[in-house]
């Protein structure tokens, strides 16, 4: 019996093996097709209705998603999203002033947390997140700066001077710099006043409702002097370094501005941030745009992105902006559209990994990658198997001879 098996023609066995492999390959291809169809279906369901096409977006702007709130009910949607800040873990924190709360969202847009502390926070305005993840909020109602832990506990809070109201805050190292109605306060992160300088007015070294502030790598303070339509750079001690943007003109009382003059000027600069390439990026609610400034060239405008409108990728009076270097995207508080938009602009990242991630998340590449990889492995195995079979057949033939 055993001899019968051994004496079976090797060519028959090879043929039977090939048939088995062919059947298995067919099953594999069918399974891959099934996975592809399933992936396509899920992408279709996951894809929100009415995603803007690149043709419908303002030039250069890439839309990632819009966040309207954390549920369909009225109390679950934004009332007036004013400013945003992105934590080290990518959490997007938004001050929703009209509802006296701060809302947190995961990078995928799902709801994470709601911070409400009516005793110390009634009209949250400016917001920032420290390197440790603590959330600093300016309360424009009670005049407090409130610090929350990443899990939403109030760690500490303090008042700026009596009768003054804080607008925006920036934190670096052990310093928390706060813009307020009457000037700029420099606090320790524990709330101890270190210095106060500036005053309210129209002069170059004065400020009028500064809605944006960031601290540069060399500790230079960049401030959006909102009502004076200027961007100003100061030292931490309050010495004025420059006033931008370079070449800006003030809008005449009568008549309009030329397009060239408009492109060099600001209307109402507000929330600001740094991008991955160290460029100063801020929003101008009256231009309905994200504007990019080169700080090395004393504040010359190097890019403008966006347009007015209610559709995705457009803004109506955006007040706040923050940047996520890991994902190379901006969270814009699109205030009058009652939403936060996650968008990208060109040249914002120097991080190759972020660029790769951006390219991969730009389409369904990540979904196709698994079946594609498996297909390549299957082809490689089939090819090497064929080569081995040929060698084996040659050996058998040689042995028979």
């Amino acid at each position, binding site marked *: 019996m055993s001899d019968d098996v051994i004496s079976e023609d090797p060519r028959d066995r090879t043929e039977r093996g090939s048939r088995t*492999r062919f059947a298995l390959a067919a099953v594999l291809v069918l399974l891959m097709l099934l996975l592809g169809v399933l992936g396509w279906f*899920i992408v279709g369901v996951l894809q929100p209705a009415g995603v803007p096409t690149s043709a419908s977006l303002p030039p250069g702007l890439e839309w990632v998603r819009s966040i309207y709130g954390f549920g369909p009910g009225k109390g679950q949607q934004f009332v007036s999203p004013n400013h945003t800040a992105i934590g080290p873990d990518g959490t997007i924190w938004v001050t929703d002033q009209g509802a006296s709360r701060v809302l947190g969202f995961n990078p995928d847009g799902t709801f994470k947390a709601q911070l409400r502390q009516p005793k110390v926070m009634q009209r949250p305005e400016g917001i920032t997140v420290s390197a440790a993840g603590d959330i600093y909020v300016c309360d424009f109602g009670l005049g407090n700066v409130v610090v929350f832990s990443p899990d939403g506990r109030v760690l500490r809070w303090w008042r700026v001077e009596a009768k003054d109201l804080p607008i925006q805050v920036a934190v670096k190292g052990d310093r928390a710099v706060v813009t307020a109605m009457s000037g700029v306060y420099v606090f320790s992160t524990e709330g101890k006043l270190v210095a106060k300088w500036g005053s309210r007015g129209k002069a170059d070294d004065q400020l009028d409702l500064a809605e944006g502030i960031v601290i540069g790598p060399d500790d230079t303070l960049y401030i959006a002097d909102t009502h004076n339509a200027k961007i100003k750079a100061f030292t931490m001690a309050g010495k004025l370094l420059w006033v931008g943007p370079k070449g800006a003109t003030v809008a005449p009382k009568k008549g309009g501005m030329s397009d060239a003059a408009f492109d060099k000027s600001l209307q109402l600069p507000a929330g600001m941030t740094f991008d991955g390439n160290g460029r100063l990026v801020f929003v101008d609610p009256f231009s309905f745009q994200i504007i990019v400034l080169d700080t090395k060239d004393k504040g010359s405008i190097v890019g403008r992105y966006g347009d007015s409108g209610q559709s995705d990728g457009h803004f109506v009076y955006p007040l706040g902006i923050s940047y996520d270097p890991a994902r190379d995207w901006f969270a814009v508080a699109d205030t009058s559209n009652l939403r936060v938009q996650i968008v990208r602009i060109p040249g914002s990242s120097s991080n190759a990994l972020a660029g790769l991630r951006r390219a991969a998340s730009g389409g369904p590449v990540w979904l196709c990658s698994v079946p594609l990889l498996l297909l390549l492995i299957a082809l490689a195995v089939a090819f090497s198997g064929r080569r081995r079979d040929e060698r084996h057949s040659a050996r058998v033939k040689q042995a028979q001879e």
Partner: protein
Amino acid sequence: MARQADSSIGAGGGPATDPVARVMGLAAFVLVGTVLAVLAYALWVGVVLPKTPRTALEMQLSTLEQVVAQNPRDPKVWAQYADALIQTKQYSKAATVIEQGRKALPGQTSLLTVEEAYMAHLRGLNGDALRLYDKATAQAQAERKKKLEELKAKGIISAPEAPAIISAGVGKGDLLLEMRRWADAAGAYSKALEEDPRMSDVLVRRGDAYLELKDYAKARADFESALTFIPDYKDARAGLEKLKAVGK
């Protein structure tokens, strides 16, 4: 020697002993696992029911759903809701909403018929769409007549608006323009313009239809008319450029 050579392929060369077949079987197993994992993920994240609007259009749909619930006697709101659903290609839900609207608003269904026609247009059912646009126009005329009589009975002399006549005219014109039936398209746009002659975009589209019909004088009149309402209207200027290009 032959026995030794055969041992590498195994008895019968079946999948149990063939290394290539084993790898392929393993790959099939991994694929099945992946399919199941993807399914589990889809169920886990609840892909079917997103909890909150994610785009402006989804937000609009959510708002309109609430507005319809608050004002179920307003035909414009029903039509806007159906239109938003059609734009998101939710045809079956749009059809349901149109039916619900018809039940809620007997005698005021012309705007909903326009939406039904628009849906047929987008689905490529051109014959149905044309028939429904005509039906909507007839319904709108009947609704206006009834309204006029009601107003007359109250002693009010006024011409009630009939937005469905405009929507049906423009929709039908757009479809006929796609079908390259230039004369019919111009006729449909004319019906809409009789109701409101200040619609610059419709004037330009009718101008385009006249241009195709080589009726250059009428085309020029439409483009220039559009520019009187919107002086820098790009499409109207483009129409005049086209006329210039053909020497007219």
